[in-house]
Structures are given as C-alpha cells and as structure tokens.
C-alpha cells in the first residue's frame, strides 16, 4: 500500500492548490464587477469635459492651446498602464508586446520614445530596457485620480517643454470577460469633438482668462482619460485573473481525476496481491 499512500498525499496537495485557485477565481469575479462599475462611473466626466472642450474650441477658434496644436513629431511620450500583480494570464505580456512594437515603429523613424509607467509589472519590465521618466505603483484595486496626478504632470511638462510632441496612452481595453485588447490611444494633441448644435456667433464670459481656463480643462481631460484607462485596466486584470484561475482549477480537477485513477489501480493491485498470498498460503497449509 506504500505507493497508494503516496498518491493519496499528492491528491491532497493538488486539492489544496485547487482550493486556493478557486478562491482567487471568486475574489477576482467579484472585484471585476466592481471595477466595471467604476469604469462606467468614470464615463460621464470624460464625456462632459469633451463636450466643454468642443464648445470652447468653437466659441474661440482663434485661440489655440499648445495641447491642441499638431506639431512635427521629434519625440514621443507614452504612458503605459499595467497591473501590479501577476497571475493574470497573458494580459501584461500582450500589452508589452504592443508597446515594444510601437517603440520600434518610432525608433525606426529616429524618434526617441519616453516612458512613464503605471503599475509594478511595467515598471520592472521597462526599467531594464530604457529610462523611465516617472512611475507610480501599488494603486490597488480602487485607484484614485490623486495618485496619478504627479505622474501625468511629468509627461505634460515634457510636452509643454517640447520634449514630447505626441503623447500616447497604452493600456488594456475591456472587451468582455474573455477578451482584453491592448490598445494605444492618442492623448495629446487633443482632437476636439464636433458639436454643431450651437449658434454661430457667441462667446463665453471667462473668469479668469481663457488661456488659463483652457489649460485647467485640458489637464483635467488628460487626467480623466488616464484615470479611465487605469480603472479599465483593473477590470481587465480581474477578468484575466478570473479566467486564468478558472482554468487552473479545471486543470487541478483533471490532475486529481488522473491521480485518483492511479490510486485505485494501486489499491486494487495491493488487494489482488494480498488475496493471492492468502490463497497460496492456504494451499501450502492444506
């Protein structure tokens, strides 16, 4: 029975692993729902601020903020959003692959790329590859916009000083629970939305100057976009982890089945052997 006992022990240990992966799956599922709610909650602000920028660019078409002007691309800035923790399938790997492809695309044109990273995974991956201008890690499952302001400001300052002529946001888009897609989004220059339901000749009363106000609004707009990217990435992380943990649990189940079969075989073999020993012993005595 020695072999069977060993197998029993293995089954026990796989069962324990399965318990853990099952628990992680359920935790990820509930966190995913909450993260999705936060993605939804962030949407109205982005929409409203976009609308205001649209109004503003229509009211005052002569005035142009540097954040809205296309210029020749000599340097590019990227904000990369990743997760803090692993065990979420290929989520980060797929994203990094796309980031590397984009970086190569620009570097082939002799356009240096500057990086700002959000999340521990991107920080440790890109640190070995290039200089990182700024980073923020350990945002947790419920990121807040105030944790992002500093990091974003580093990039915005670079853009203002001409150290970046275009600014991209790279993160995962939540398509559905099974699918998350790495995506690149242009943050700056901002392309205002067209809104034609307003009369032709009008202008705001500005308090204070339009330039200052536009600055305020555009900075908030970029921050809102990044915030939305971050909460969406959390939803992606949870979905990916849920799927990864589910398949881990399924695999553990398969292994347990195999081991159980092995155990039964060994037990049967032991019984057969015992029986034949008894029979042989009985035959010898009589």
């Amino acid at each position, binding site marked *: 029975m020695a072999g069977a006992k060993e197998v029993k022990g293995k089954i026990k240990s796989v069962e324990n692993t399965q318990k853990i992966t099952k628990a992680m799956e359920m935790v990820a599922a509930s966190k995913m729902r909450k993260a999705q709610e*936060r993605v939804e*909650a*962030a949407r*109205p*602000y982005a929409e*409203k*601020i976009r609308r*205001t920028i649209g*109004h*503003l660019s229509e*009211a005052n078409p002569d005035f142009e903020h540097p954040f809205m002007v296309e210029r020749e691309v000599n340097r590019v800035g990227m904000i990369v959003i990743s997760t803090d923790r692993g065990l979420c*399938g*290929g989520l980060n*790997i797929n994203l990094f*692959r796309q980031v*590397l492809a984009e*970086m*190569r695309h620009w570097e082939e044109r002799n356009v240096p790329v500057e990086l*700002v*990273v959000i999340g521990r995974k991107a*920080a440790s*991956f890109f*640190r*070995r*590859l290039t200089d*990182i*201008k*700024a*980073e*923020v*890690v350990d945002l947790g499952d419920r990121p*807040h*916009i*105030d944790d992002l*302001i*500093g*990091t974003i*400001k*580093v990039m915005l*300052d670079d853009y203002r000083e001409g150290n970046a002529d275009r600014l991209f946001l790279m993160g995962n888009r939540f398509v559905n629970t099974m699918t998350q897609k790495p995506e690149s989004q242009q943050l700056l220059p901002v392309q205002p939305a067209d809104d034609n339901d*307003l009369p032709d000749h*009008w*202008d*705001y*009363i*500005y*308090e*204070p100057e*339009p330039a*200052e*106000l536009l600055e*305020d*609004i555009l900075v*908030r707009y970029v*921050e809102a976009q990044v*915030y939305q990217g971050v909460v969406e990435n959390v939803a992606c992380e949870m979905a990916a982890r849920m799927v990864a943990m589910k*398949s881990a649990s*399924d*695999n553990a189940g*398969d292994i347990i089945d195999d081991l159980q079969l092995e155990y039964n075989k060994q037990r049967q073999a032991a019984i057969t052997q015992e029986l034949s020993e008894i029979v042989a012993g009985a035959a010898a005595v009589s």
Partner: protein
Amino acid sequence: MKIHVDVVSAEGEIYSGSASMVFVAAELGEVGIAPRHAPLLTRMRPGQVRVQQEGQDEVTFFVSGGVLEVQPHLVTVLADTVERAADIDEAEAEKAKKRAEEAMSEAHDRVDMARAQAELAEAAARLSIVQKLRSGH
C-alpha cells in the same frame, strides 16, 4: 423654465437632472444661475454647489474646486475630487520622478530591446503551449 444640470467628478456622476436655479462658488464669488444665463466658463473654488428645484428640497454638494461651464440650457460642473494647487501638483510630479529614478538605480541588469523581445516571445510561447495543452485535454 428649467435648466439641465450635470455635476460630475472624474470618479463618478454626482448629479444629473433639471433645476430652476443653481448656485456655485465661482472664482470671483458665488454665482446664481437661472435658465437662459449667458454662456460662462469659470474656475470654481472649494465650496458648495446648490441645486434648487421647484417644489422640492434643495440639493447640496461639496466640491473641492473644478470648472463650471454654463450654456443657456445647460450647466456642467466639472468637480475635482482633490484639492488642486500648482505646488501640490509639482510636489507629486517630483515624487513620481524620484520613484522612477530610485528604481532605475537599483536595476543593474539592463537588457537591450532584442533581448526583451526574445523574453516576451518566450513567455508568449509558453502561454500558448499551456493553452494548447488545456484545449487538448
């Protein structure tokens, strides 16, 4: 006459509905906005936003600043969730830079682009094998 009011912050919608009058702490003092107000764009100070509806109780929110946009039939309050000041933002930016610099100085094993790509390809291959094994089971 009614005016539509949207109060939003980056982390969620706070209020959306119609009102007969809205009071906001604007940069140059409190403003009351009735329907058909002239277009106005102003910064807000930390303070209260009060929305009055006829025959109903006044609704009050606290905002820590932000931007107010007024169109004749539309009031948009873009509220900040945190207090903003140039020096606070600057300090945050410095912190973010510092974190990156500290982390960079700890990283000794720098690799080049090709190596990173190879590592990624390997990781991706490992993943796809796992997936294949799984589907074959």
